């Protein structure tokens, strides 16, 4: 039996960005439908590392990250859900003088955006984190950063959207969307949604959706490989990363140490992903080099998930370049969890006011069409989460 819905805005992709958008659009008085091919918040948004981190981001992202960070402070209350949000601070470690110089430069740049980082010398790091191995020469600390439980955030946004009256339809895979006289027609199996606005928050699928409207946005699947230990006595008081991004770990309030290790396997077409053993073992060894205290710990689970990654490792956010009333927000390149909450507000602003006070020019989809784009980004080799 086929079904038709008519709404002001149709959101394709119920990750944290899409569900937050649904909430903000409802609050702005629009009628909204959210379509997800699986369960809302069960994609990248639900399986990520849980880092709520500003430090280390591409500077263009800092205005968004700053604004999002403020939302995180009250998010649990808004969503009526314990998010296990812990302002543990995020510490980024330098393992060489070159690393240290990089951190110092970043701290200077970040200050322009209002992000204050504290530089810690080797002795300070050692006194603060006595169990670190001897490879660390210094660090930069972002006291406001922290961590949260990703499994509950996206679904809580989806529930709030539903409470506010949005039509949230799960297990609805969108296979086509086209411009109509009045707006858009979006097909998801036997469901057709007609809408004035279309929000593309489809994660790794965002590039494909954009291509339906004649736009080019190269999005590759990105599968960070994750591991978690059994619960251990509490000792990792901060979320930890390193220059180069090849080690990162945090400890949950319950004691599990979560850490990353390389890249897993994934097939975005069938939405399946698997961690890869060599990557896991490599990550275990690198983490152990940095944190010898994990020597006797046991890994009880590993996983990965699929995010969309762009060549320049920053998302696509903004109006479509070809199609009026189509708004993009996808390709968060492995670090869109922290940004999720603000994406809702920004998308709603773009829809209801046509613009947002937060600078988003660097994320315009047009950038991929510009000549020389590939050359500019060729040197990018790693991604931080």
């Amino acid at each position, binding site marked *: 039996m086929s079904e038709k819905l008519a709404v002001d805005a149709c959101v394709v992709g119920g990750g944290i960005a899409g569900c937050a958008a649904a909430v903000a659009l409802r609050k702005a008085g629009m009628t909204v439908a959210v379509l997800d091919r699986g369960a809302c918040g*069960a994609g990248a948004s639900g399986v990520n590392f849980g880092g709520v981190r500003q430090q280390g981001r591409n500077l263009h992202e800092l205005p968004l990250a700053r604004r999002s960070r403020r939302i995180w402070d009250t998010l649990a209350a808004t969503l009526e859900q314990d998010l296990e949000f812990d302002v543990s601070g995020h510490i980024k470690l330098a393992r060489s003088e070159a690393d240290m110089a990089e951190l110092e430069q970043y701290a200077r740049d970040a200050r322009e955006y209002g992000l204050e980082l504290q530089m810690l010398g080797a002795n300070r790091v050692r006194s603060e984190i006595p169990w670190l191995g001897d490879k660390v020469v210094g660090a930069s600390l972002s006291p406001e950063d922290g961590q949260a439980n990703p499994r509950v955030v996206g679904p809580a946004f989806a529930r709030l959207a539903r409470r506010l009256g949005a039509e949230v339809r799960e297990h609805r895979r969108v296979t086509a969307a086209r411009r109509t006289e009045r707006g858009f027609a979006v097909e998801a199996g036997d469901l057709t949604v007609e809408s004035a606005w279309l929000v593309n928050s489809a994660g790794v699928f965002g590039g494909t959706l954009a291509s339906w409207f004649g736009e080019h946005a190269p999005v590759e699947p990105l599968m960070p490989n994750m591991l978690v230990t059994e619960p251990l006595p509490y000792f990792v008081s901060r979320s930890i990363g390193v220059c180069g991004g090849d080690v990162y770990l945090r400890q949950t309030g319950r004691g599990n140490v979560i850490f990353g290790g390389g890249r897993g396997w994934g097939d975005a077409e069938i939405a399946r992903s698997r961690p890869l*053993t060599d990557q896991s073992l490599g990550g275990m060894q690198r983490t152990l080099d940095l944190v010898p205290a994990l*020597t006797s710990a*046991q890994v009880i*689970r590993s996983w990965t998930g699929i995010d969309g990654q762009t060549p320049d490792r920053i998302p696509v956010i903004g109006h479509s370049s070809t199609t009026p009333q189509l708004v993009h927000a996808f390709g968060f390149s492995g670090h869109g969890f922290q940004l999720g909450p603000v994406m809702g507000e920004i998308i709603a602003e773009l829809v209801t006011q046509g613009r947002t006070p937060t600078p988003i020019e660097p994320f315009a989809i047009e950038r991929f069409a510009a000549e020389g784009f590939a050359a500019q980004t060729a040197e990018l080799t790693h991604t931080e989460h």
Partner: protein
Amino acid sequence: MSDPVVAIVGAGPAGVRAAEALAQAGLRPIVFDEAQRAGGQIYRQPPPGAERPGEDLYGFEAGKAKSVHAVLSDLGERVVYRPRTLVWNVYEQRLDTLTDGGYGEQAFDRLVLATGAMDRVIPFPGWTLPGVFTLGGAQIALKAQGVSIGRRVAFVGAGPLLPLIAHQYAKAGAEVVAVLDVTPFSARARQAAGLLAQPATFAKGLYYTARNALRGGTRASGVRKLRVEGDGRVEALVWTGADGREHRVACDAVGASFGLRSESQLADLAGCRFAFDPVTRQWAPERTTAGRSSRPEVYLAGDGAGIGGADVAELQGRRAALAVLEDIGRAVDASEVARLDAALARQARFRDALEAAYPYPDHLVASIADDEILCRCEGVTAGALRDAVREKGATEVNRVKAFTRIGMGRCQGRVCGHAAAELVALERGCPVSEAGRLRGQPPVKPIPVAGGAA
């Protein structure tokens, strides 16, 4: 061209019989088992130093046990046997292993999974107290270690294992204060005809039942509403009898579990398709009588893909090996294939009767209260599961896991996954087949962060 590499996981009755048939055909199979010694669950061998005469350990089955134990040693160099080796992942055509803390890997062309089973668990108040073990655990304490789990022991269960273990404990000199079956005796009487399809086993069950009756202690069928009481350890077992009255027995240990469940994580990771069996109310990897799975390179034998018991496991192991041989183009004895298939068909009839004789005790699941611990690893209650379903819209167990951590702990849902699905189904008012099944994730058991190379 070199011979294809055939890997076998599990050196229980199924795994060793598969190895034997493959070796006889001139292949050199590689057998992995995380245990120190071959034998699997029922024919588990005590660790070196704790050996005892076979008759004491295996009773009626001593001869079979001896024969299963001898297989790998008799084959000598014709098999590669890797004891103390956990297979913690299957990815494409490679196994990831852990031997004495060292990591290794094994590429294979064909894989026979013979991973066996563990007890099926249904939580009840007090089930996480020290002194409560599974029936299997109680049996292993006795068989492999020569110890009893307590001085005054009560056993609760649903299935033929219950009288057997009670008998073994009593015979070894332990005080068995209660033997309680949560299924009604009438169900067993009704199935007597089917059970007689396999007279030896049924007779054995009756023998143990009779012996137990002679030894004092409380025996009851159709009991409901179990509860273990105690402050920090087991002090009493309380239940509601078929008469509707509450009964209590003082004890310091309880063995309790309710049938068996297949150890099927590796089949899941190998990509095998699963099917729901409405009789045993479990998901199991699909297999043909010959042991072929939905994946061309993966074969399934023994209790790891549906419970059949030890004799069936031996037949299935051999049959799966013949399927491997057929599929790699080796000659196999067609009459042996026919014989095995006929024997397996007979056993299947018996198994159906056995399952019906011990119907699933759904009354136990229904009576799980909100404040009861459901996931013992993470200490998550049944109430948290119900909240995830009722308030947060979770419709299946993986979503429940994401919201509540049920099934996320050290055991990866082996212990609680089954009851969790039953509870989701009850809460939603849907068949348990629609409550989903926890997806396997590597590692299937804990592995060290600091593992060297094997």
